[in-house]
């Protein structure tokens, strides 16, 4: 059974991104794309105000994947009243690149996957840079 202390969304985001980049360098695009999506998902969850274990168990935002999280990102505004939130949002203008990403794509035949790897990578890069900013700001550990 996972506990909150076992979860680190920022570290998970960086790990998924690094592994995605390794896979992409070897032409393993389908799984690289999956991991770019998970990197972005973890990065945004790192800034959202929820308990990973409790909310995962409840099946709410913790289990929500990137498309819904993007829509819920306005929650950040309630978590961080101030211009910081606007700064973070302004750092991820490409987040909608994930509109055609879905976790179920791990089951798909490769020939049906969208040719979006570069767009997903760019959007995930923005999320990771946003996390660096939040870490400097003292918003995340």
């Amino acid at each position, binding site marked *: 059974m996972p506990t909150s202390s076992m979860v680190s969304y920022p570290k998970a985001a*960086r790990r998924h*991104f690094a592994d995605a980049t390794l896979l992409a360098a070897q032409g393993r695009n389908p799984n690289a794309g999956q991991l770019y999506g998970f990197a972005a998902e973890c990065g945004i969850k790192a800034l959202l105000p929820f308990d990973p274990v409790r909310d995962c168990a409840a099946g709410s935002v913790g289990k929500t994947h990137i498309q819904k999280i993007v829509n819920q990102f306005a929650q950040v505004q309630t978590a961080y009243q*101030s*211009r*910081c939130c*606007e*700064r973070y*949002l*302004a*750092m*991820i*203008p490409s987040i909608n690149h994930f509109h055609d990403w879905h976790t179920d794509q791990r089951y798909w035949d490769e020939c049906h996957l969208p040719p979006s790897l570069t767009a997903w990578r760019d959007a995930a890069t923005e999320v*990771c*840079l946003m*996390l*660096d900013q939040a*870490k*400097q*700001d*003292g*918003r995340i550990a």
Partner: protein
Amino acid sequence: MNTIVHFQEALDRAAKALIDESLNRDERIMLLRDMKGRLRLLVNADPGWEKPRIDRICATLGSLGGFGEVPEQAVLYAKDFFDLTRIFHDVVLMQDPAWAAPVRIVDRQIIGQDWLNPLDTSDGPPRLVFFGIKGGVGRSTAMAILAHTLAREGKRVLLVDLDLESPGLSGLMLPHENMADFGIVDYLIEDAVGQGEDVIRRMVTASPMSIQTQGEIRVVTAMGSGERDYISKLSRAYADVPGPDGPISFASRMRRLLDQLAAQEQPHVILIDSRAGLHDLAAICTVGLAGNVLLFGSDSPQSWQGYRLLFQHWQRHPEILKSIRDRLKMVQALFPETDQAARFTSFLQHSYDVFVNTLYESTPPEQEDPDAFNFAKSDEAAPHYPLRINWDNRFQEFSPLLLASGAMTEDQIQATFGAFLKGAKGLVGLTGELA
């Protein structure tokens, strides 16, 4: 019981720890002060590099109470970030009179970054910023008189109201029927959704003040003519917006707006009414727009205290200070009618004291350095030596629109504003006579 360490003392102790370990200038290491003021160490190297010295610094950071971090979490390495190299680009050198040497620091703030975000030069026409620590010292009136004088001399003048939280230029310079469709705040809101270009063409209007002058006064106000929801817009105006190379800060957006207005209007000079006080908007106006800055003040303790606080902030960042200090000029506003010699002497002394103790460089007499940034108290060209605006009851609650009617004579204007006008025109290189 834990010892309480307060904000300023925490930074002093952290800086001293770096200096004592001779790591304050090493390009692989710097202090990080986060938005709450908590201090940590950033190291662009692998864990283990300079371990004994870093451990001692972390021990100090661990003793800073609410502004520190437990020693084992007081240092962050490259592995803790996606791209630490990029963060090291933001480093500034901070210096404090209480420290033995400068220290490299990334200072994350909720607001206020723009006091340290200078624009050294701009390609467009000269810019002159009207700033005061306190309001109500005749800034806008002086701006109107200068604009009118320049227009009489054949110059095309662009006035910009950046006092967005206390907008007043429109009422002062324009009858309501002359106002443009949109103002600065409209631009900021519309630009954030990609519609700025449409607004910018409809936000400048001619002032009737220049109806009989050879030159022209063009005005950009904070709000447009049909404004019904100003506060709703203002509350959204300061946001950063996404750009192709990362977020575009509010300061950068204001710079871009000024550049676009200059290209559209082709003025000889841009006069900018800044927000008063130690506010972000004032930071952008005074530091971020590459203009000469008129520092309005009266000889009051509140005024000098405010300027001292501002100058001390710049003083701690020597590299920033160098790009700002020679663009400053004090203005003694509301210069009283009585006891003038003593009152001028008092103002000059207070002004000189503030500059000497903050912005001017101190070089020992035996090391005369011609390049040192310092001035004699009596040097009229020095930033501390004030341009003077005399007190004149006729200019209280004065409408600059009267200038067009000839209600004020040239003698009256010269008697009150003559010294100021000469000095202000000199700052922007427009020293012409009446056309």
